[in-house]
């Protein structure tokens, strides 16, 4: 795919709002939007048009049984203690505390590794990387955190970097990712006050992936990545493969 720039954004934005882009292209558009928030209004405007399509089908009345099932499910969730509704992030992350020193130790290696981006990165992630570099040189990037993630992916040789932008958004780029089983996806979580918020999907292009982190990192306690069913989950269903306390 050609690099995502203003022209190529124009080219695919209609397909994006219709949901007609494959996941890797969708992630590229979202990463572009993270770098160009001034273009979000165009997308919101188009979403208003595509949203009309949702009202076009003939109307059918859902069954009373469906209503009962939905309300029972909500009541059941409410009945559980709030802490039990989600896996407590502290314990969820706690298993990885020991990895912190390992991860910090790996930081020097990571920095060296990141210097080889231009050689290693290809395709969409290369394009995204170029945009990140462009943003940095233009002074749009507030902070680049060469984060030493821990987790099983790191043990398997993966490297990750987060670039924070001025508008509180950030981009996560992972290289040398282990393969993800079919029907599964990498999902980013921003943990805030022990609550993991779904914050983007990592769709690999070869063995690399990039995504805009959709939750602000300002007050976040940690960033983590888990492997989830395709399309992502509402809450983590597996242990982190990447994790970094902030």
């Amino acid at each position, binding site marked *: 795919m050609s690099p995502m720039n203003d022209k190529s954004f124009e*080219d*695919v934005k*209609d*397909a994006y*709002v*219709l*949901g*007609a*882009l*494959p996941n890797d292209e969708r992630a590229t558009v979202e990463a572009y939007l993270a770098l160009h928030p001034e273009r979000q209004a165009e997308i*919101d405007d*188009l*979403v*208003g*048009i*595509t*949203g*009309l*399509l*949702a*009202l*076009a*089908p*003939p*109307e*059918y*009345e*859902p*069954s009373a049984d*469906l*209503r009962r*099932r*939905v*309300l029972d*499910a*909500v*009541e059941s*969730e*409410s009945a559980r203690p709030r802490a039990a509704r989600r896996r407590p992030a502290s314990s969820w992350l706690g298993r990885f505390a020991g990895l912190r020193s390992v991860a910090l130790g790996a930081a020097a290696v990571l920095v060296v590794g990141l210097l080889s981006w231009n050689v290693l990165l290809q395709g969409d992630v290369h394009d995204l990387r170029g945009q990140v570099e462009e943003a940095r040189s233009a002074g749009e990037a507030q902070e680049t955190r060469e984060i030493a993630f821990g987790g099983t992916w790191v043990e398997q040789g993966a490297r990750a970097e987060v670039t924070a932008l001025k508008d509180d958004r950030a981009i996560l780029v992972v290289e040398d990712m282990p393969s993800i089983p079919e*029907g599964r996806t990498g999902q980013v979580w921003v943990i805030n006050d022990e609550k993991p918020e779904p914050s983007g999907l990592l769709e690999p292009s070869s063995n690399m992936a990039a995504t805009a982190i959709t939750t602000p990192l300002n007050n976040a306690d940690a960033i983590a990545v888990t492997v989830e*069913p*395709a*399309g992502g989950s*509402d*809450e983590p269903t597996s242990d982190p493969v990447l994790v970094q306390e902030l």
Partner: protein
Amino acid sequence: MFVAKNRQYAILADEDLMSLMEGGDEEAFAALYDRHSRAAYSLSYRMMGDRQAAEDLTQDAFLKVWRSAGGYRSERGSVRTWILSIAHNRGIDQLRSLASRRRTQDRVEQSAPRSQPSEAFAETWRNRQREQIREALSTLPEEQLKILELAYFSGYTHVEISNLMDLPLGTVKGRMRLGLKKIREYFDQENVAIPR
């Protein structure tokens, strides 16, 4: 008392119900469900083509709405659009994961709520909106409408549509663009605001 409370929910705007849901108000959720489940189910049925799959998708979408109430941003669109986009996105994910292409209590009582039209009026209004939308779609050339439907309701990517219809990818993208533009123009020409 319960009836009185339900009446209060019925006159609250969607945005107020969302605020109440953030605080864990199940009755606010029930009111929102009653207001939008038919549209969500109809969309789900159109996408999945099967009653059971449509019910599962609708349930999945509304549970997501319940869990993500804090994620709603009014500046990005109406609550209805948000709910339907959740159903749509999850429907797309499900279609693509399938091999087959068959493809706030006190606040309620204390606040002065923004009023919602009466249910009868609201129903009439929604029906009118649907008519306008269908009229808008009827103005599209068949080849544009088909591509919008394949993308939006059936979950095909632009490349898949290109292969399916034996059209250059650029043509598919062009027809998507023109189709959406034409829908907008319909509402502009009719001097009607685009329903949110």
